[in-house]
């Protein structure tokens, strides 16, 4: 057993393009880029993967991949993270077709507006990304996500989404077949997780505080767990435990 773990750790340390046995199915916070968008330099997705692997049993890819919407490999995993400060350019027909294939396999897309300002006012990406998703999934309508949704208790018990900013409104989502497939956020989650090369936090938080940073990490882990376990925590066997813990949380605690 120890020998096996050592082998795997040794392999993880090697610079590899292909992933080792047991890591192919690890959580990959894949960054989606569209049109002429350039790959973001944020370390947020990598931090997301690191926090997941340190805090939970879930394996994660510490070097998250980047995939273009026009690339057929968009269907190679169940999760995509699409974030930008700029307005999203109109999707090409190839990009729309690829995204539809991704959704048809049950994939989950997290759209996060990293241009949201300190007052919670969304940037141009929020509206433009909604417009483009409406072209990809024209038959669907975003709905507000209830605080009771399993997304807020896949690992941590949370009350509302927090990132670099605290959202004034809840997440909106597109659900298909009973599962969340698109999450619309304006909290700049990757911004809250990103660190500088020196190890400090890349962006200050609004309103601020370590509690908010911790809640952002917890939300990122819950999203990852939702991708890997779907509605596992909705299973009846968990219900009595989680109901008791919910009632013990102090009023006003996120």
């Amino acid at each position, binding site marked *: *057993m120890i*020998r*096996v*773990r050592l*082998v*795997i750790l040794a*392999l993880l340390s090697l610079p590899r393009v*292909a*992933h*080792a*046995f*047991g*890591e*192919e*199915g*690890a*959580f990959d916070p894949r960054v989606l880029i569209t049109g002429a968008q350039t790959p973001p330099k944020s370390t947020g997705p990598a931090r997301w993967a690191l926090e997941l692997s*340190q*805090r*939970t*049993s*879930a*394996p994660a890819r510490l070097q998250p991949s980047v995939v273009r919407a026009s690339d*057929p*490999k968009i*269907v*190679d*995993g*169940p999760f995509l993270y699409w974030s930008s400060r700029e307005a999203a350019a109109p999707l090409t027909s190839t990009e729309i077709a690829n995204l539809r*294939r991704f959704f*048809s*396999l*049950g*994939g989950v897309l997290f759209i996060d507006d990293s241009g949201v300002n300190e007052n919670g006012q969304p940037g141009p990406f929020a509206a433009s990304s909604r417009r483009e998703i409406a072209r990809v999934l024209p038959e669907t309508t975003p709905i507000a996500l209830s605080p009771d949704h399993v997304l807020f*208790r*896949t*690992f*941590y*018990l949370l009350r509302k989404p927090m990132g670099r900013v605290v959202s004034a409104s809840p997440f909106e989502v597109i659900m298909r077949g009973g599962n969340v497939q698109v999450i619309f956020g304006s909290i700049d989650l990757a911004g809250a997780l990103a660190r500088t090369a020196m190890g400090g936090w890349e962006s200050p938080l609004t309103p601020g505080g370590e509690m908010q940073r*911790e809640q952002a*990490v*917890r939300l990122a882990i819950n999203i990852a*767990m939702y*991708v*890997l*376990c*779907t*509605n*596992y*925590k909705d*299973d009846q*066997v*968990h219900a009595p*435990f*989680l109901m008791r*813990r919910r009632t*013990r*949380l102090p009023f006003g605690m996120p």
Partner: protein
Amino acid sequence: MPPPSPLPSLNVSHLAISPDLPDFVAFLAAALVAISLALLAVELRRRERDGALILVTGILALVALCLAIARPVRISAREIQIGARVLVLADASRSMALMDGKQSRADVRDRALKEFASNARDTRLSVMSFGEGAPHPWPTGAPMASTSRERQSDLSAALRTIEKSPEERPDAIVVVSDGRLTDPPETATRETLSALVSGLKVPIHSIATTRVAPADASIRAIRTAGAAVAHVPLPVHIEVGCAGDIECGDINIIARELRDDGAPAVLASGTAHLVKGVGAIDLTLTLDRAGNRIVEFAIKPPKGDTIAENNRRFVPIHVTRERIRLLHVAGRPTVDVRALRQWLKSDASIDLVTFFILRTPADDPHATQDELALIPFPVDELFSDHLPSFDAIVLQDFDALPYGLEQHLPGLARYVRSGGGLIMVGGPDSFVGGGYAGTPLADVLPVLLDKSPGAVAVDIAAFTPNWTDEGAATPVLAPFRAIIESELPTMTGANILGDLRPGAVALWTHPSHRTSSGKSMPVLAIGDIGAGRSIALGVDGAWALEYSLLGSQTGARGYGALWSGLLGWLMRDPRYESAQIEVGGCIAGAKSTLRIRTAATTESQAIVVDISRIDANAGDTPIKVEGAIEHGSALIELPPLPSGGYIAKAKLNGATTRQLFACEAGGDEWADTRPDPERLKAISEASGGVFRMASDVTRGIPLPAPTVISQERRVTAVAPPWLWGALAAIALGAHWIARRRGGLS
């Protein structure tokens, strides 16, 4: 149907009116004669003289006139008498083999048949046997055993067949039986019997073989649904009885499930209180394992019981699952785990219980327990108390050691051997990596695991699995192959698996890695383990069938088809079995047939079937029977088997299929050994027939008269028509003269 055998012929001759006259002419002539005589009588009162002459000439004139109209002819012919058709229905059921003293009921039946035949020489007699379904021609000269082996005595079916037959209907039917009929039942009313015989419109006579009931205690009836749902209580009503010279009070009854993996399991027991020789008890059975099961019901008979065979009955019960109850345990959440859970949750026929290890002791969540949505992993509860309630267990990338599963591995192995299903899905913490090598659980996997201290757990080289011949041919993966067209995705590594366990089959193998014996390493293997089944999938990349270009092109249907086949085979879904075995009603001590059906193939293939006992004599040496599958089917004759429960196992394309069956000495026909002459008497009375005991056949049975048939018929005129006309004219003229002489006009 035998050809009519005519009796000796007779030459006969008689007069008749001309055949060219219609029937009404005779009536018209008779009416005219009557009217003319009446008028003659009236006129005679007005005559002056010669009254006698007028009367005589008048009558002669009328006679001559009638003869002129009728123009008589002489008909001569040769007449043949055909005997009435009498059909004898002789009871050929197994109850006729019961002994009445030193002779069997069949002996009495055969003697009665002989005596009746000698008294019915003027009839066309045909003898048929009745039992199950339509009657069959009586096998003349056959040994007694062959004429008393039918599993039922369905007289109603025999009578309905005769009624609907297009052949000549018999003029009388004679039934020879002990009266203990399957149908009509003992409770049939007179109205029911009348309705049964009314369509035939012939008398049904009956001859009863005996009135004497043997000294016997027996299970007379077991009433239950032929199918049950696993884990759901099944009510069973059992009737017991005593007859003959035997004393019965309370009788103990026990119900046991016959198992091929060990001793019979007691399901229920109770005591029936007999009043006037009859008692009943209701038991509730709960069968946990799906498929065809055999339940044995047995009584402990009182002293003096002379028939032991009906103290034990075997009842086949088909057990289905309302839903497949599945326990899915994963050591850590991955995309592979997600894919399998998503598929299992999407199937409404699966009742899924899931436990994923989301946090190990080494993980630091930076939170108190109350801030986490985690619950303790109830390993003891799941793998001890609730284990029997699951139909299958899926262990996916799960390490046995940290979570206390190790202590439950012996129980988990027993669960598989006694009929449970097990799937171990690959990952760093599966197979050798999960600490399973050398444990009892390793003994129920279809592959061997290296338990040496330096054993390597995984091979990290990327590869594409190869299909084996068995994998390409098995119905388990046929739907999967049809979707993906045999193209398998590249895997990033594999668990190191050993050689196949005896009886297991590899469906995929590694292209380069070899086992210690030099064979290609299994990647996907299936195997029968005792009464259960297990699957080893030594990769964690099956999810690539869903999230990949291949998955996108196939709509992820390949992933679903793979798991449908594997889970279906694990649960013995007939669609995924390599073959289907059926055993036709087995009678203890007599040859029976076993049929094997496979997916259609034109190739001839030899097959060997192992027959083993699963009841109290389970240690008996198994029997091997051989056959050949032609065009997807084989019919194999089984040698005479003693009464008991059996399992038939056949191996085809490496995969084993099996079927439980039972052979009974008496069956339903020996359940109630009392004869029932009163039922035969009621049937005869309802149809207008007579009833006789076999000892009284010489008193005779009223038989219908023969039918007369005329042959070589000749018609000759007695006199030419002109002569009849002339005679009539002369007679009328003489009458006219006599009238004139008498003063009449």
